[in-house]
C-alpha cells in the first residue's frame, strides 16, 4: 500500500510518500492512523489528533471507518484550504 502525505502531515512525518504493509488487524482507516502513530516521533506528532486528519483512498475522500483492504493509494492530509 502506498501512503501519501500532504502539507503539515507531510512535513511532520518527514516524507511525501512511502510503501507500507500494515498487519492484518489494521482493517479501517482509523486502525491505520493508530498503527502509523507507533512508527516514530514524526508520525506521533503528525497524527496526535487523528480526528483532524482527512483521508483519501485511491483519490476519493473517505470516512475513518472505511476499510482499507483494497486500497492501492491512501493519502493523509489536513483539512483543505484551497479555493
Amino acid at each position: 500500500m502506498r501512503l501519501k502525505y500532504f502539507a503539515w502531515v507531510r512535513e511532520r512525518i518527514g516524507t511525501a510518500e512511502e510503501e507500507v504493509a500494515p498487519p492484518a488487524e489494521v482493517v479501517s482507516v482509523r486502525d491505520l492512523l493508530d498503527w502509523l502513530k507507533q512508527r516514530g516521533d514524526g508520525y506521533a506528532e503528525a497524527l496526535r489528533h487523528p480526528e483532524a486528519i482527512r483521508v483519501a483512498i485511491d483519490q476519493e475522500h473517505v470516512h475513518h471507518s472505511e476499510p482499507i483492504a483494497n486500497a492501492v493509494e491512501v493519502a493523509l492530509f489536513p483539512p483543505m484550504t484551497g479555493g
Partner: protein
Amino acid sequence: MVAAFAPRIRIQREDFDAGAEVARLSGGRTDIGAVVTFHGLCRDEAGTLSALELEHYPGMAEAEIGRIAAQAAARWPLDGLTIIHRYGLIPAGGNIVLVAAAASHRQAAFEAASFLMDFLKTRAPFWKREHLRDGTPGSWVEAAAADDAAEARWSAPGAPRG
C-alpha cells in the same frame, strides 16, 4: 439531469486570463443568458503577506473537482462550466481560482458558482501556506469553520436545488 457539456477543468501552475476564459465559455453562443464568475485572488492580509504557496494532490485534485462539477451540473440547468485552480507560489494580488458558470437564467448561474466555491474550499485537495513579507516563514492556513458551514448549507432542507 445529465449535463450536455463537458466542464473545462484545469489544475495549473501558470496564471490564467479571466476575461479570455469567460469569452471562451460564452463566445459564439447565442443561448447563454448569464455567466457568473468567481475570481479568487491572493490577499496580502493587510500587508503582512508576500505570497501564498499552494500545495496540491495531483490526480486527486482533477478527480475531485470533476466530481464537484458533475454535482453542480446535475443540480442546476447549466450551459457551461469552467474551473481553474492554480498551485505553486502565488504573489499577493495574483490569481488563485476561477469558477465560471453559464446558464440561461441568472439564479442557476449564481447558485452553481457559489456551490462550486463552497465545495472547492472544503473538498478540493489544496493547502495554502503563507509567505510573510518580513521574511519569516509563515504557517499553513487553517481551515475555517465558516467554510464547513458554507458547504453544509447546500445539503440543508430547503437549500437551492436549481
